[in-house]
């Protein structure tokens, strides 16, 4: 089966009161990771607004996907912008836990 990168990862950017929520649906891997960065770039979020990555619909993540999330975290940190990541689906959360990344990601407040 041949899938386009867009079929593989759906990215929805949603603006809420004090935050921008980025919904990831599908698979975040070597092929689709660049989409995440470009979606954030084109959303032009100002530094006062918190960025929340919602991983609940994400079915798969690999090390490249992790790197993409970590590099977003670093970018936000440089701009003193708040960055949070929701818990992921079992596979995603497993990788976040195994790699120790989950401990270093803030979970969003309600």
């Amino acid at each position, binding site marked *: 089966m041949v899938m386009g990168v867009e079929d593989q990862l759906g990215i929805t950017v949603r603006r809420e009161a004090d935050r921008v929520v980025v919904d990831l649906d599908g698979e975040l*891997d070597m092929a689709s990771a660049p989409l995440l960065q470009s979606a954030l770039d084109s959303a032009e979020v100002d530094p006062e607004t918190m960025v929340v990555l919602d991983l609940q619909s994400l079915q*798969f993540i690999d090390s*490249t996907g992790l*790197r993409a999330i*970590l590099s977003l975290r670093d970018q936000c940190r440089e701009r003193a912008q708040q960055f949070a990541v929701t818990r992921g689906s079992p596979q995603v959360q497993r*990788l976040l836990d*195994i790699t*120790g*990344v989950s401990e270093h990601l803030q979970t969003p407040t309600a």
Partner: protein
Amino acid sequence: MTEKAPPRDIAVELLVEAGAVMASSLDLATTMQQVAQLTVPRLADLCTIDLCDDAGGAIREVAVASGDVGLAHDLEALRRRHPLDPNGEHPVARVIASGEPMLLAEMSDMLMRSFAQGSEHARFMIEHRYRSAAVAPLVARGRTLGALSVLRLGDCEPYCGEDLGLACELARRAALAIDNARLYSEVRQVEQRLAAILVNLAEAITLMDARGRMVFANQAAAELLQASSPEELMQARPGSIMERFLVLDEQGRELALDQMPGRRLFKGERPQPLLVRNVVRATGEERWLIVRSSPVIDPESGRVLFAVNVFENITEVKRAQLAESFMAEASRVLASSMDYSETLQGIARLAVPQIADGCAVDVVNEHGEIERVAIHHRDPAMVALAQRLDRGYRPAPQDPAGVPEVIRSGRPRLYAEVDPDALAAYATDNEHLELLQGIGARSVIIAPLAAPARTLGAVTLICSDSGRSFSHADLALAVRLARRAGTAVESARLYTERNRIAHVLGAALLPESLPEVPGVQIEALYRAAGELNDVGGDFYDVLPYGADRWLLVIGDVCGKGPRAAGVTALARHTLRAAAMLGQTPTGMLGTLHRALRSQPMGADLCTASLVTMCHAGTGQPAQLTVTLAGHPPPLVIDESGQATQVGRPGTLLGVIDPIDVAEVETQLRPGQTLLLYTDGLPEAGRSDHRLGERDLLALCAQAPGLDLAAMLARIEQTALRHAQGKLRDDIALLAVRLC
């Protein structure tokens, strides 16, 4: 006024002359005038011929003849001013209406007034002393065309029945001649309209008679058949036009004149449209034509009078079709081998004779010299000649023209007609010139063997004995071919190169062999995802770590390709160095973390699992220390197949500062198996069909019954089955079992 001649003599004389007149002209006005003139003065002082329209309408055409030219002229003018009323009483109108002849032996003034078209007409008749008239209908092919009137003026003898009979006889013959002239004039008009259409048609059309002479040709035919005008074609000797061309069938066999559809029509055949390849001998231009011929048949004899030939020029369509099938074939040849010289020889063989008579391929070798790698020609003698030429006069890279110039500039060259003077100037000496002349290239194309970033060489195509010369369409095809071949050669070269690099890198990523440890079985398995030369990713190692101590390493670097391979080599060798220095597992991982952080190209992400194993000897348990950095925990599988994860999750390396890892002590008893694996294993398969950790544990349950190598092979097979043969990440497995 008129001398009386014996009626019979006049009649015979008149009728003979009438026959001659009528055969001499097919022009309506001329014919009418000549017939009228015949009667004067022998039968009449004044003669008029009136014609009516087809629908029996207006009476219009008129011819007037008289010994008195002024009278004839005045009457014509009068008739134009006052046309005869077709429904009136004028004898002409009555004869036309009834189709019956009419004799007006004696015309009184009163009678003339009764049928005159107004007073002017009546005055005219009376003034000119109209005396006697005979009016005969002009009937031809069952249709009344008009009337012939003969008149006598003044004091002469009136007409009798015999005169009327003669007028009728004359009218019958005249009617036929007039009708013929009229039909001819109609045909002429139709023909003119038809010719206007044919002349302006874009398709070339010729009309050929049974002797092979062209009786009609339009402008398009003149252009197609290389004549200056349609007239030139029509004046040409039969068959001479075809001598200007080489006419071939689709397979390149020469066609004779009598195989052409037009000629075959005259042999009673009904030929199908013929596709011909037509080469203009003078210029070498090649065209593809469909020739259709249909007969013009004589309805009476059934014989073929003419062949109508329609030539449809389908050169563009045919070229495009040939080019596509040629390129498809070329792609097949190019894909058939990864050996570039073999590939290029295949291309040369394919080009001949399909697009050229000869083909040579030159490439620039690693020393920068131009090297001929392929040569092919229809004529084997020419191949030998070309080889002699290549041996004696191989072009040098800095030569100003020819192959070296095309390689340097990357621009193709078309020499549609090779200029003998230019050839002489190009030759370095007499022998060179003789060899070049011996090849007899009439037309040459040199196209760059172009790879995306550079020109690798050139493809030379020549036309010699086929008489063709290359066009811009041929040049376009040659450029496409050479570009496709260049890309194929470059990818074959790169593939070979990447394979070599992958092997070199692979050697740096994985240990060549695992150390022998007494009382311990050690097995490893590495399965790369994707192509063989997609290096990088997973690594494993087993190294001595002090007395009776061993270090087991497994790890995974984020990404694929050369950069990941570099990081993988860095990770493996950093850990080796750190182990030799006697660092603790935490220390070793810290060292690797810092090494990754300090990379010039920015941090790379890596996970690793380190297990130290202290083993005193056979039958003894081994003491393990498990330290995880972002890596899945190893499994200890006991004799019953029960698997337990060992170790505590720790931070992956290279991105998060500081790292947090923990050394966890555990034991491996004889009969137990330790399995280290990379994430490619549980991630094998797409989301709905992933191998998963649960399946992995189920697999481990079978482990005790299998020897270590078989166990790893089974795990690999299961993973591949879940992934339907297409792993999304590499899998590395490292297993240790105590005897």
